């Protein structure tokens, strides 16, 4: 039984503790994915179809895990993907995650649907930061997001392109997940049995969406589901021209988040992106779509020399990262790999998770006979057939 942070040693442990601490609609919002969650499961199981082949006797006492993406040197070869609504998961929300990211000198991805403002985050941490952009119908809102992220000196802008419409997250339909949380009879019991969450939620500051609230009612006053937000507020006619315009307006490092086809990866390079996140949104959008790791090699072969390719989603272990990096990803990133830890123990939880992944990476690099990330190559991998 896992009851304390001290008992958490891996992804599964953090998940269990998060389940214990969170009201069920909120836990399932993090934990769930689209339709039958087949893509969600594949995102992780894809790593099991390939094996690592170590080299021995190489003298590996000092391991350097650093990598450079978007022109920034990170001490870890992975970073924290942008995720929405973090103050629902722990009352410190983005403050906790940002401080933990700073401590490990890795990049912190901040969602357009963050519950702490870019200004506050930027005053708090000076380490690399990514702002995740949603393309809204309201152009005033778009301009405001861009200007504020620029003024707050964010290093990278990532445009999410896989949420043209909301995914079919059936767990949310059943639990009645809305933000802010709405009390239905069905969810009441769950909230009532997790009193600490409720007390913290109600007493530790008002729940806000600072990047949107001047422009919309949704998600603040009205009870809105995330699916509704995607389907009603985002601009479904978004196309390559819009992405290109945004990229040049931003004028700095720019990534598309959610690219899966080789064709699209090439176009991303053409419009001036400096990176792409190969991702299916953690299986939360199109179920039945390909896993990032399955698709990685093709994309690296096509555009790996032109932009930074990041493998995002399904990562639970240091060895998963080693496999992706060996295939040619510049870095990895993930959401749930730190979200359960956030729910389990706030900043201390995220730090513990990052410490665990870092220790795994160092140990596994040594076992592989590698001392720096650039030592990893496809020679280390064998695909089962």
């Amino acid at each position, binding site marked *: 039984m896992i009851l304390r942070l001290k008992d958490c040693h891996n992804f599964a442990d953090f998940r269990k503790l998060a389940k214990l601490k969170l009201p069920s609609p909120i836990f399932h919002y993090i934990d769930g994915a689209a*339709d*039958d969650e*087949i*893509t969600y499961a*594949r995102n992780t199981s894809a790593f099991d*179809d390939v094996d690592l082949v170590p080299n021995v006797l190489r003298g590996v006492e000092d391991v350097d895990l650093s990598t450079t993406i978007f022109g920034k040197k990170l001490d870890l070869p992975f970073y924290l993907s942008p995720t929405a609504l973090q103050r629902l998961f722990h009352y410190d929300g983005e403050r906790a995650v940002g401080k933990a990211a700073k401590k490990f000198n890795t990049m912190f991805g901040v969602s357009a649907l963050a519950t702490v403002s870019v200004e506050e985050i930027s005053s708090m941490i000076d380490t690399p930061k990514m702002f995740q952009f949603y393309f809204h119908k309201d152009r005033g809102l778009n301009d405001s997001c861009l200007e504020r992220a620029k003024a707050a000196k964010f290093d990278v802008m990532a445009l999410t*392109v*896989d949420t*043209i*419409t*909301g*995914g*079919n997250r*059936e767990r949310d*339909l*059943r639990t009645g997940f809305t933000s802010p949380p709405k009390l239905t009879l069905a969810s009441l019991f769950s909230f009532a049995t997790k009193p600490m969450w409720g007390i913290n939620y109600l007493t530790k500051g008002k729940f806000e969406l600072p990047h949107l609230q001047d422009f919309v009612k949704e998600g603040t006053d009205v009870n809105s589901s995330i699916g509704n937000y995607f389907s009603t507020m985002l601009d*479904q*006619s*978004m*196309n*390559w021209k*819009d*992405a290109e315009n945004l990229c040049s307006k931003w004028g700095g490092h720019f990534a*598309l988040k*959610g*690219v*899966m*086809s080789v*064709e*699209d990866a090439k*176009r991303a390079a053409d419009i001036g992106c400096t990176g792409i996140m190969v991702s299916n949104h953690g299986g939360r*959008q*199109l*179920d*039945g*779509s*390909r*896993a990032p790791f*399955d*698709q990685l090699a093709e994309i690296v072969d096509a555009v790996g020399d032109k932009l930074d390719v990041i493998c995002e989603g399904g990562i639970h272990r240091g060895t998963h990262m080693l496999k992706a990096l060996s295939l040619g990803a510049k870095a990895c990133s993930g959401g749930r790999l730190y979200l359960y830890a956030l729910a389990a123990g706030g900043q201390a939880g995220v730090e513990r998770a990052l410490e665990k992944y870092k220790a795994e990476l160092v140990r596994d690099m040594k076992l592989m006979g590698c001392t720096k990330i650039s030592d990893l190559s496809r020679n280390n991998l064998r*695909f089962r*057939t």
Partner: protein
Amino acid sequence: MSLKNCYNFKDFRNLAKKKLPSPIFHYIDGGSDDEATLRRNTESFNECDLVPNVLANVGKPDLTTTLFGRKIDMPIFLSPAAMQRLYHVDGDKASARAAEKFGTFYSMSSMSNNSIEEIANISGGPKLFQLYVHKDKSITDDLIDRSRRSGFDAMCLTVDTLVAGNREKDHKTGFTTPPKLTLKSLMSFAMRPNWVFNYLTGKKFELSNVKKKTDKGTNIAKSVIEYINEQYDPLMGWKDAEYCAKKWNGPFALKGVMSVEDAKKAVDIGCTAIMISNHGGRQLDGSRSPFDQVKAISDAVGDKLEIILDGGIRRGTHVLKALAAGAKACSFGKMFLFSLAAGGQQGVEHLLKNMHDEIYRNMVLMGCKSLKELNSSKLIYRK
């Protein structure tokens, strides 16, 4: 649990299970032998992945297509299924009305409890008649003539049911039609008084299309297995199929074609379509799944006739994958039968709405504006 909370196949199935006496539920739910083919029909979709294109400016994707010479609003329709009055008092009327409302095909089984004429009267929507070749040729001829007179759009001849499959669940539950009360099934019927009440107070149970020609399936408690083995002609061959196609002289499909060779022969005898199907895993256990076979068949005859994938469909993404692999449309049986049991016409409409929305949403996520854009470049098979 109510219709409102039914989001997917499992939900409809659970609700149907609550509402139906167990022999009837298991008649729908079961497959033959060890049900390996039944499971594979759905699992086969999971061995390949869709690859979306982003920033594609999709707007509102167009889900319409043409099938059997009629324009339909989405690339899915209801497979023919026998004896729908057992699942809900309104039987085929409910399915036919729901399909018409969503602008797609309803199919009538030879073993329907409503007559061809009755359904033609209540629905102007696209209609497919499913034919079995009976030992008594006059029954077959009569069904073809009446379907034409009543304005059915198309006909399919089922070719995978020369003998009945070994449905072990039916042996265990003692499923017969009309349902026979055994001690074992009595409890299950007794616990579902609504079903029993509706069944007994509704129209008399009969196989309406064949009642004048045979008393089988009406007066005596026959198991479906016995009925199939007694009535259907095991000597049926390509000549008989050709005879039916010529006599019908309109859009015509063979239902239950699995080999590339047979698909080519179907072209030769004048079929305009085939339904790749193993009867939902209810006949030959261990046979290949439609999705595993669709690409090979489409490569061979995709330009000569319309290919329908029948069996295993549970999700909008399954339909997308089938179309990307070469199918023109998909059909499903169990899924709509459970929704029929769960809520009659309203249940089937709820299901069709769900499926429509899933296909629509997933087309947007795929970056596809029309069904034509779903081609093999959108699908990658895992090694």
